[in-house]
């Protein structure tokens, strides 16, 4: 992509200017969520949405059936290897604890893997390990508190009210992630 003002050329996946006046500059990547419209509305009933005409009808829940083609990648910042986990693995283990480049992370995936989100597992200096505990919830190994897998918010227990830090990540075609992050690890 290009910015209108300087015509610099940017990488959309890295969020970084690769050529032109802004070369080397980086945009902050927001932690967005890719999910179905119905699930998004349940979470955010007062949401607004883009109201333009459709350009295709292809992107529906069923697209994730070919889960081998996709990964969930986590951006750890410039110059750091960005790890990814195969969507197939996340469909099998929807509460997935792992570590990469010194970062302790958690990726949670929704039913059928149609929604995923990454969090830091470090909370107030302690490292937590999570396991699924029911529909939409998980527990940590230190306090057995209950957490919302989508928001990272502790719903009940000793840590109630605390929220895990969301990490920027995205569902990506595997081949694209490999091209942009050749040094990154993909957990199969």
């Amino acid at each position, binding site marked *: *992509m*290009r*910015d*209108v*003002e*300087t015509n610099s*050329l*940017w*990488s*959309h*996946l890295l*969020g*970084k*200017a*690769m*050529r032109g006046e*802004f*070369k*080397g*500059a*980086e*945009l*902050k*990547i*927001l932690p*967005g*969520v*890719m*999910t*179905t*419209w*119905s699930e*998004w509305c349940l*979470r*955010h*009933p*007062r*949401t*607004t*949405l*883009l*109201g*333009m005409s*459709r*350009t*295709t*009808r*292809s*992107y*529906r*829940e*069923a*697209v994730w059936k070919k889960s081998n083609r996709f990964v969930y990648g986590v951006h750890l910042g*410039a*110059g750091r290897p960005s790890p990814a986990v195969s969507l197939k693995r996340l469909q099998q283990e929807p509460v997935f604890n792992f570590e990469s480049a010194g970062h302790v992370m958690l990726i949670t995936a929704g039913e059928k893997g*149609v929604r995923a989100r990454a969090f830091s597992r470090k909370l107030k200096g302690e490292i937590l390990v999570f396991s699924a505990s029911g529909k939409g919830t998980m527990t940590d190994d230190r306090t057995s508190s209950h957490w919302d897998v989508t928001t990272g918010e502790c719903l009940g227990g000793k840590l109630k009210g605390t929220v895990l830090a969301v990490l920027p990540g*995205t*569902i*990506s075609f595997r081949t*694209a992630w490999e091209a942009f992050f050749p040094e990154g690890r993909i957990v199969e």
Partner: protein
Amino acid sequence: MQLDGRRFLFPRMKSGLLHLLLLVGGIPVSASADGFNPHKVVKAFPAITDPRIVTVDEAGGFVEGNELVLGVVIGKQARAYPLNMLTNPTREIINDRLGGSAIAATW
């Protein structure tokens, strides 16, 4: 949208993946951009800077429940970008504002 105190907009991205980018000022330059060899760089399309945004009621049933969306929350404001509105080359970057921030939703 500002970077180093200057406004800018994105007219287009080439292809591929979904991201939300927040444009902020004073971002340090850190990584090398050497070795960047895109397969093809296409001519820029006009920037989308004032996209139509609607409420759930206004949208009615236009977006079906099983369609994929990219969602983001900034402050107390939530917004969804249905992927099925982003796939044409002229649509792959939506310059937008949400919760006081200038953002670009890209596909």
